[in-house]
């Protein structure tokens, strides 16, 4: 098993009121729980079930992910630049695993 690696692509500066895009990707198998191994045993489900984006502590965008999300889930979304601060990205996995990234945004 490889360790899931989260990645984001965000501008580091934006004008006040500007809408900017955030591209996120986490390398993750997203095991659906529907597959069987070679002995016919069900491979247990292990997916990233929640993605949260906080902007200075406020949840501005979140996603509930289900089994039908593709492996290595890619999510692109759009935020409005309101103030300079910290963007925090959190992926929550089945079984309680958490992967996080942070990004500093300067709003002029």
């Amino acid at each position: 098993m490889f360790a899931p690696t989260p990645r984001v692509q965000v501008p580091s500066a934006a004008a006040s009121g500007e809408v900017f895009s955030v591209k996120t990707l986490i390398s993750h198998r997203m095991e659906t729980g529907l597959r069987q191994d070679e002995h016919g045993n069900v491979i247990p489900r292990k997916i990233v079930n929640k993605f949260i984006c906080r902007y200075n502590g406020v949840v501005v965008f979140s996603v509930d992910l289900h089994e039908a999300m593709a492996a290595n889930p890619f999510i692109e979304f759009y935020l409005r630049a309101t103030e300079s601060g910290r963007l925090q990205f959190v992926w929550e996995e089945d079984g309680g695993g958490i992967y996080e990234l942070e990004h500093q945004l300067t709003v002029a």
Partner: protein
Amino acid sequence: MEKTRLPGFTRRTVLTAAVAGSTGFASAALALSQPPNDYAVDLVKQLTGKTPTASDRLHLVMPRSFPNGYTVPLTLAIDSPMTEADHVRHVSVLAPRNPLIEVATFHFLPQRSEPRVSTRIRLAEPQYVLAMAEMNDGTLLMTETWVEVATNGCK
């Protein structure tokens, strides 16, 4: 020399018939892309307890056919000013012919995030993919789009 003609089979009638036939075909094709799909409405009712309204404010953009069911691109956008008084709370994507029909739910915050998102999903077979958006006043908007996949992405 006198020309003999089959009655009712002139150049004019042939052309008229051809035009009528092609428009008939075109309207059938249109009906296919925008079906009054009772099944989808019933499904949403069962899941949410609310009756959805088909809306052109919802844009669900997916390829009409895609070779691979494992990573089908999906873009979703909703026309909304995203003010406190008028905004989208969340949007769910459903794939009714997948073994597990829920795909994802996206939550937005008025004035902070735009109701626009792109991702990649799995589809088990060709089907109508549904998107339903819950607005701040509780109304449920719905749209659907036909996607043909060549391989099962859920195995």
